[in-house]
């Protein structure tokens, strides 16, 4: 029984699925919020998969997602600006998702990894996720 992969599967079904529902209907603001949540969740899924498959190099996927995900959301905020109703519906779910989801995934992973370069990488991903999540929700609120 591989708990990491189970957790990844749960995040895909219970996290990415609803995000797609949010992104597929309604106004532009709601869709961008869902897109942002999806990048965050996918990044966590990549971290869990890397641990579950026992392939530390897959963490690079999470590293790239943690930078490019918020960048993508900022692109939408910048160019859809006037279409996004402020504050967009669902936005208040975003901050708790970042504040709870990131540590809930990263702390067990850090404990399982132990000290070393891999831990440093995990912490960089975590910091980028929290900073990106907070900044994108700020940007969406003022769109």
């Amino acid at each position, binding site marked *: 029984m591989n708990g990491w*992969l189970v957790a990844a599967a749960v995040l895909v079904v219970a996290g990415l699925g609803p995000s797609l529902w949010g992104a597929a209907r309604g106004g532009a603001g709601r869709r961008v919020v869902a897109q942002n949540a999806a990048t965050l969740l996918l990044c966590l899924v990549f971290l869990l998969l890397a641990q579950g498959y026992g392939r530390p190099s897959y963490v690079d996927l999470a590293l790239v997602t943690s930078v490019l995900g918020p960048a993508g959301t900022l692109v*939408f905020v910048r*160019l859809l600006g006037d279409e996004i109703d402020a504050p967009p519906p669902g936005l208040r779910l975003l901050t708790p998702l970042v504040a709870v989801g990131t540590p809930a995934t990263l702390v067990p992973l850090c404990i399982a990894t132990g000290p070393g370069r891999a831990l440093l990488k995990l912490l960089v991903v975590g910091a980028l996720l929290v900073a990106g999540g907070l900044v994108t929700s700020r940007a969406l609120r003022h769109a």
Partner: protein
Amino acid sequence: MREALDDALVVASLLFVAAAATAAVLTRDPARQAVVLSLLGLGLALLFTVLQAPDVALSQLAVGSAVTPLMILLTVREVRRRKRRE
């Protein structure tokens, strides 16, 4: 058990990709479609990863998460401006 779990991840990713692709086709406004396309890109990256092709997943992520939306939205903005003029 492990094989069943791997299969479950592949099936879930495939379903996500199929649903996202359908949603992208059904969304008619190009600007909003760009948001759905971005989710489709994320789904494809996930699918490639659970199929153990992280190199392809990384290419998909790199192109799909910011560069493609930027190109689509800039094009939409320019096309709309030209339409307003006519």
